């Protein structure tokens, strides 16, 4: 498998290099939204005497600077490509090979993040400096935060594939995915830090998988929660990731039975 991954990585670098400009344009998505929300919340905080709930201007700067990195590292867009592959018929050749199609996405996803991080990291640093970001993270937070980012990336990726698999039943999966993404947008911590959400929304964010996709790793990395809470949150991520993997396997296997190889 290592040799297969090495070959896929080489191929993926060649493909990504063929479209260098679009490679970096897509990276804009990682930081444009967090910067907009940061600016908006800072304006609100300053109009209220410099604080917004438990967050100072510097705390907001810290949260969104880290959110830029976490958004980037946990991004998943495979559902759109998967729909395209099914509609164009290019999934079939992959299904005919003794390698699960998800492996191509894992490599493509990971490599894109790695290659475009060089553009995203300086932006996150610049945001942190501009807003005098405050971080309260200890080495334990950083270690747990790293684990949490990996789990969040896995969670986003897995749920992305669960929804992408709907394409086996309906070749227009875009609407379903958009609904999923809008829900994630509200509950994941993109709009505002989880700790600033009204109590019912916070509970919903932590019962549903969405909070674990962005808000949880961001809060852990910034030191916004204590280590015990961080461990509990990581436990939540593990549970949701396990649910996601089981769901994915069920949906994928059922979907293959439905597959009518449209256009292939």
């Amino acid at each position, binding site marked *: 498998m290592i040799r297969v991954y090495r*070959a896929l990585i080489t191929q993926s670098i060649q493909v990504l290099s063929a*479209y260098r400009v679009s490679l970096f344009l897509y990276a804009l998505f990682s930081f444009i939204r967090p910067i907009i929300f940061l600016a908006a919340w800072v304006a609100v905080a300053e109009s209220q005497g410099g604080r917004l709930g438990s967050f100072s201007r510097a705390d907001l700067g810290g949260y969104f600077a880290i959110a830029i990195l976490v958004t980037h590292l946990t991004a998943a867009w495979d559902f759109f490509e998967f729909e395209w592959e099914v509609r164009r018929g290019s999934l*079939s050749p992959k299904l005919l090979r003794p390698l699960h199609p998800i492996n191509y996405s894992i490599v493509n996803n990971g490599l894109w993040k790695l290659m475009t991080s060089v553009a995203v990291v300086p932006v996150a640093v610049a945001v942190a400096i501009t807003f005098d970001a405050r971080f309260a993270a200890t080495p334990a937070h950083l270690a747990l935060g790293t684990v949490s980012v990996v789990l969040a990336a896995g969670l986003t990726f897995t749920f992305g594939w669960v929804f992408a698999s709907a394409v086996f039943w309906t070749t227009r999966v875009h609407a379903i995915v958009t609904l999923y993404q809008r829900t994630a947008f509200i509950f994941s911590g993109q709009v505002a830090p989880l700790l600033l959400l009204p109590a019912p929304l916070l509970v919903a964010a932590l019962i549903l998988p969405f909070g674990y996709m962005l808000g949880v790793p961001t809060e852990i990395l910034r030191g916004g929660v204590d280590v015990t809470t961080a461990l509990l949150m990581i436990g939540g991520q593990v549970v949701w990731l396990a649910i996601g993997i089981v769901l994915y396997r069920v949906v994928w296997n059922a979907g293959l039975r439905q597959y009518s190889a449209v256009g292939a």
Partner: protein
Amino acid sequence: MSDAVIEVSGLTKVYRVHERQEGLGATVRSLFRRTFKDIPAVTDASFRIAAGEVVGFLGPNGAGKTTTLKMLSGLLYPTAGEARVVGHVPWKREGDFLRQITLLMGNRTQLVWDIAAADSLRVLQEIYRISEERYRATLGELTDLLDLGPLLHKPVRNLSLGERMKVEFAAGLVHSPRVAFLDEPTLGLDVSMQARIRRFVAEHNRRAGTTILLTSHYMDDVVALCRRVIVIHHGRLLYDGELGELAQRMAPYKVITVALRESAPSAFLDELGTVVSRDVASVRLQVPREHAPERTARIVRDLGAALADISVEDPPIEEVIDRVFAGERMPEAATA
């Protein structure tokens, strides 16, 4: 037939499709209440193919050829029936099965569009776990047969259709599959490239012993490559047997072509058989098979010096197949 590598029994595939009447009212109603229709694509197909055979799978558009190939390659689950290909149930898509088959479709690409074919082939080498030595040997042979040398290092998007088809063949065969399903492999290619691909398929079959199930609308492909054909129409197998025998069953006549130095009397020609075409220098006649030797001898004897040349042939295979599809006479399905 104990060495069968493809065994199909009662294979059936029914597609369930959404059906809507035309018009705005029907469109609005379909938002609330959908109606579906079952479309049988393949019905109760049974056949066996032995190792090393090249079999032509013939049928008009929508006959069920591609659906059958997709089921046999594991892409589609059948609605009913059984199949085993190289000892595996295809739709279980086990790794050992996938390593032994290939499905090449003339209108689809399996190569990555933006990079050189050589790079895609390297990935396939790892996916199929091909040793470096075997990879080099197989690719060398494919390069030799298909004249791939100058093509392998160009991005696939820059290749012409014919060139792309050649590298598609390389990608489909680099793992030396035991069974190759070829779906319209010469579709859209010019005559010379069609002939080249045909020669390649024949040579590859001879060298590697690959079992091939081929669909094509070009009868030249079938005549050049397949002794045996399976004819499918409206999802049902109509014929399974020798290509030559199909002509005998479906077209119980021979075509006698006579080249003339001077014109022959119409009455004489009409006595011989049905005149299909006629001009000053030649005549084409349809003659019942059993009378062909006697009528040929009569033409030679009676026309004497007026006869410049004569040939006796089976009707063109396109004509034979047209008669099958037109349902002029349904031959009893034979078992190869």
